[in-house]
């Protein structure tokens, strides 16, 4: 039996005592027994630092502190240093500087920063980076966090705050406070694992230990008798369709007769406690008959390969053919041919998937959990439960990052819904970091054969590309990933002859799905590597070669789509030119023994929106009687900042103060469908939907006021929340008053907006118009390579991005810096190896001390169709970084790395094989 011991400590300056099981960690006592949820459980093994609290003023990882150790000590959580109404200067600085994105790491970062500043009130950048190196962040690239700590150091001394623009209405292009940022900074934002309900049961999942096996039998009888167990579900308990997916509903919620990958869910236990549920999982007896498992493409495509799926092992192929490549190669003076490889990638969002589900007062199954696709998830869940979609409601909890991994995450939310529906009781499911690594979708590993031909003048005349990807046993996003990879495989270059074929192949490896860029980071790495090798062969400067082939208005992409102005690719190249020249001079300077400096470029194009699919977003905006504006738009903000951008667009279009706009983007019962947060589409599509709704509402407001004031509506404007007569300084009427009068009169002050742009389906040769608009960008990498150890240090990344209009500049900059961090990881450190990579210790996302200097340059040429001229930027920043780094390594050493990540060993091998 568990025994309880009384322990006493000082919690946030108040004496506190409680009875606890001494084998608990401080983290679980704080979260479960005390009820303070600001310290987060991001990994459970001390790798991520999200659980940091202070003990006697020193930061500790509370997941590694056994609770008995705090007897008599002072414990400080984020709740103890500031509140929403009275934040600590560090919290204020994090919000003002834009250091908060998904917010999952934020309370821990702030506490670590506090421990540093308490001892060292004037730290250097390096000292800050070093102090927070035990705290992982996946969103920001750490730059804004270090900025915030340095800013806090001066705020503590009484320096004035940065200008906030919160009361302005002309806020597009201004760095306003991010919506929800302070709630995250003071620890009151609720993520899935922070939610609870009275009487709630806890869920645990039994997962397949085999890569490929038949399930001969499942015996749950012993587990059902275990103490605390309420129910156990298997495939036979699913009332509707046991399958989900965007293109093909082929992924089971619970395995039915067969498991096709390790970690596949086989049974679900609901019990009174997490412990009871976990114990019961161990008592379920499953008899498996192991089948031969296939992991690589060449084996999977063999005639005699075991069939992973009845239809065969080819999942999906996209061909894109334009012109005649043979003719093109005949014109070429140089032909460069290479095979590139990229690894499986893990999103490593810091919040492990978690949430609760229950039945609400309208008999709906409600899932309240992390997601980046709430409306889609309700449709999938309804099908799984055999319910009408009106009987399912999804409420997005504050979500700690997604990067594509929380789209179609019905393998998680479906289980929650199933248990709540069957038991009609609240249930909670919190996945562990290890489960996230084992079960969630991964970035598709690519093998890419590239053959590229150019004339001696440097004109790319032909490109032939063959892409193969071992994608695991279920389709998920394969069609989208392969199509985007194929359509973007030749990059932002006008190449008349292309032949591209991209095939996803079923295997028994991890299921691959969407991850920031949908196949485009992989092809960008390959194509940009080709460009530099062509430049070297022809003796043309790499920047010049890109200029000579750059797409311009009227150019055709590989699908034959003709680009309409503006096409600001050349502008991004011109924007880095000066930095490039300086970097070349830097590389010539003395750099130490065995250290060589190099400079490299990478460029990209990226189509906004889901490829050749419907992308419709909808929004509703109303003016309330308190004068505030409510935007309803189901565009999931997972930390990237869409709530803020949409509120800015609404404020600017309506002429109301930014801080008078509220948004609900989280509840499917309230906010209309704005499609998934993916494909960098929310600013463009949902921004346009909000703009349309705002304009319609503005018209209603002006026409109502024109009647009330007896003036023509053309003579009235809305200015900072008031109706104003044009040309006069008088505020005729506050909007709240108008709303109250209209409410009495029964005049509705609400309007809907929706937005869709026609794209076309691609024909059998991949020809058509898959995207309404493209974004372009160029990154410059400056690296130092140690030729003895193979270590690569990225010193500086300059990135220029065509963004149309930077609506929320500090947020956009933060997103780009985070994309760069992910790009550096893709280039140098990140590799998921099934069975070996189990957690954040093995999968190396960048830490603060590994970040280079980053310079971000926006190229702002307004997109005529974009809301306020904006396009989209969620993914583009993580595309060209890896290519720029690998090209810089080649520039430094002559060594060409063809396989990512460019680990020291690979760099060393490449240097020995083909280096100078």
């Amino acid at each position, binding site marked *: 039996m568990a025994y309880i011991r009384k322990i006493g400590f000082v919690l946030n300056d108040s004496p506190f005592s409680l009875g606890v099981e001494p084998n608990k960690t401080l983290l679980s006592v704080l979260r479960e027994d005390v009820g303070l949820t600001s310290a987060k459980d991001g990994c459970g093994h001390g790798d991520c630092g999200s659980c940091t609290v202070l003990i006697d003023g020193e930061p500790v990882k509370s997941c590694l502190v*056994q609770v008995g150790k705090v007897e008599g000590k002072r414990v400080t959580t984020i709740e103890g240093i500031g509140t929403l109404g009275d934040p600590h200067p560090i919290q204020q600085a994090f919000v003002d500087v834009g250091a908060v994105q998904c917010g999952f790491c934020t309370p821990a970062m702030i506490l670590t920063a506090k421990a540093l500043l308490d001892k060292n009130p004037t730290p250097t950048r390096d000292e800050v980076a070093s102090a927070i190196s035990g705290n992982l962040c996946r969103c920001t690239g750490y730059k804004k966090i270090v900025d915030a700590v340095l800013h806090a150091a001066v705020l503590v001394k009484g320096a004035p705050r940065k200008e906030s623009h919160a009361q302005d209405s002309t806020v597009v292009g201004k760095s306003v406070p991010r919506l929800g940022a302070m709630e995250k900074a003071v620890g009151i934002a609720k993520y899935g694992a922070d939610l609870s309900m009275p009487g709630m049961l806890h869920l645990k999942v039994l997962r397949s230990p085999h890569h490929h096996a038949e399930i001969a039998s499942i015996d749950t009888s012993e587990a059902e008798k275990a103490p605390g167990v309420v129910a156990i579900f298997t495939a036979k308990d699913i009332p509707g369709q046991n399958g989900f997916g965007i293109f093909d509903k082929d992924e089971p919620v619970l395995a039915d007769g067969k498991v096709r990958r390790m970690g596949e869910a086989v049974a679900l236990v609901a019990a009174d406690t997490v412990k009871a549920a976990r114990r019961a999982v161990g008592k379920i007896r499953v008899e498996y008959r192991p089948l031969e498992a296939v992991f690589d493409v060449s084996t999977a495509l063999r005639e005699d390969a075991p069939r992973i799926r009845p239809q065969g092992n080819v999942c999906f192929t996209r061909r894109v053919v334009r012109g005649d490549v043979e003719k093109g190669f005949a014109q070429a003076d140089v032909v460069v041919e290479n095979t590139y490889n990229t690894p499986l990638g893990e999103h490593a969002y810091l919040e492990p998937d978690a949430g609760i589900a229950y039945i609400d007062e309208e008999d709906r199954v409600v899932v309240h959990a992390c997601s980046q696709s709430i409306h889609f998830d309700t449709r999938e869940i309804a099908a799984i439960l055999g319910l009408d979609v009106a009987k399912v409601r999804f409420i997005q909890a504050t979500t700690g990052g997604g990067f594509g991994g929380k789209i179609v995450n019905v393998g998680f939310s479906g289980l929650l819904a199933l248990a709540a529906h069957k038991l009609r009781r609240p249930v909670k499911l919190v996945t562990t970091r290890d489960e996230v690594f084992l079960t969630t979708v991964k970035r598709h590993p690519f093998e890419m054969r590239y053959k590229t031909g150019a004339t001696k003048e440097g004109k790319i005349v032909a490109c032939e590309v063959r892409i193969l990807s071992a994608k695991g046993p279920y389709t998920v996003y394969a069609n989208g990933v392969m199509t985007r990879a194929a359509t973007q495989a030749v990059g932002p270059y006008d190449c008349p002859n292309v032949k591209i074929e991209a095939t996803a192949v079923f295997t028994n490896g991890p299921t691959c799905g969407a991850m920031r860029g949908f196949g485009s980071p992989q092809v960008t790495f390959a194509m940009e590597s080709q460009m530099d090798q062509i430049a070297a062969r022809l003796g043309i400067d790499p920047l010049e070669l890109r200029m000579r082939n750059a797409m311009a208005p009227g150019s055709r992409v590989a699908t034959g789509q003709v680009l309409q102005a503006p096409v600001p690719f050349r502008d991004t190249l011109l924007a880095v030119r000066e930095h490039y020249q300086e970097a070349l001079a830097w590389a010539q300077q003395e750099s130490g023994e065995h250290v060589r400096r190099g400079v490299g470029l990478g460029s990209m194009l990226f189509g906004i929106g889901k490829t050749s699919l419907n992308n419709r977003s909808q929004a509703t905006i109303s003016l309330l009687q308190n004068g505030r504006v409510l935007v309803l738009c189901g565009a999931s903000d997972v930390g990237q900042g869409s709530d803020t951008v949409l509120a800015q667009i609404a404020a600017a279009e309506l002429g109301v103060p930014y801080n008078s706009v509220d948004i609900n983007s989280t509840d499917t019962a309230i906010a209309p469908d704005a499609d998934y947060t993916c494909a960098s589409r929310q600013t463009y599509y949902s921004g346009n939907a909000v703009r349309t709704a705002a304009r319609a509402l503005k018209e209603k407001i002006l026409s109502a006021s024109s009647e009330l004031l007896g003036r023509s509506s053309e003579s009235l404007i809305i200015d900072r929340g008031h109706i104003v007569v044009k040309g006069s300084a008088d505020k005729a009427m506050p909007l709240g008053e108008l709303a109250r009068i209209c409410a009495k009169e029964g005049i509705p002050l609400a309007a809907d907006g929706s937005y869709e742009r026609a794209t076309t389906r691609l024909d059998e040769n991949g020809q058509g118009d898959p995207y309404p608009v493209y974004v372009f960008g160029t990154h410059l990498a400056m690296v130092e390579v140690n030729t003895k150890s193979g270590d690569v240090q990225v010193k500086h990344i300059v990135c220029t991005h065509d963004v149309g209009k930077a609506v929320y500049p500090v947020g956009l900059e933060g997103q780009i810096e985070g994309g760069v961090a992910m790009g550096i990881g893709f280039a140098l450190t990140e590799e998921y190896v099934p069975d*070996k990579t189990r957690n954040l210790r093995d999968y190396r996302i*960048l830490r603060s001390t590994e970040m280079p200097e980053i310079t971000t340059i926006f190229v702002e040429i307004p997109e005529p169709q974009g809301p306020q001229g904006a396009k989209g930027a969620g993914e583009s920043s993580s595309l060209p970084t890896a290519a720029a780094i690998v090209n810089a390594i080649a520039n430094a050493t002559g060594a060409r790395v063809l396989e990512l990540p460019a680990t020291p060993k690979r760099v060393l091998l490449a240097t020995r094989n083909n280096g100078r």
Partner: protein
Amino acid sequence: MLLPKFELLQPRSLEEATTMLAESNGETRVIAGGTDILVQMKWRKLRPSRLVDIKALEELRGLRWGQDHLRIGALITHREIETNQRIWDRFSALAEACRLVGSFQIRSMGTIGGNLCNAAPSAESAPPLLVFDAQAVIVTADGKISLPLEDFFVGPGKTLLQPRQLLQGITLPYPPARTGSAYLRHSPRNAMDIATVGVAARVTLDEGGATCRDVRIALGAVAPTPKVARSAEEALRGKPLQQEFIRAAARLAAQEAEPITDIRASAGYRREIVEILTERALILAGQRADIAP
């Protein structure tokens, strides 16, 4: 992530602690900072039925600057070492190594005694302590014994400690004048990661400052235990601290290493890194010796 069930014992004296350890039947482990053992317990790699928490034991605390040696209590945290200027001045390599352990949070909790008793081949604090000729002070039921730290390590995760014994601390003789030291490591990333190779070097120069009167070199993560590179030391001792001798010593150190291949690095790569780091550590230690009083 839950911990397996265990019984927690919190002795108030050294005597009580050794008695608890002596009475142990079944798996008993000592817990100090807990930053390593709790991870292993969560992974279910360890399932001790009893944990003896030694954090309250006064005898295991504190730094004592004696006549001719420094005593470091086993409960001293890495943070206490990395923030101590006197240690930086006299035992640079040790402070340097402690600064590289884990992260701010881990260094605040994790103790030097824990680092040594876990006996990971990659333990950061071990190579610098070896080059300073550290002695391990062990409390047994019959009293204290002191032995060279090198003999303390037996294999990966294994030390000489018997079930009823405790590491009380470490003693470090003060190095002679004109001594400098350095610790360098290579790891997949530069924070919160385990060393793929760690090298500590200590150089004592003669009066003229040209000749290497004494030298010690120790390697981490490249053998079953932290390892002294004896033949490399021999090769350099008494020689001028010049590139050709330094390089020769570095080559010998690489030969003495007995690395394995694992997820972090291959054996061959580790050997190459030993050579590079040994060379750099010797140069750095030499430079520090040159400016030392």
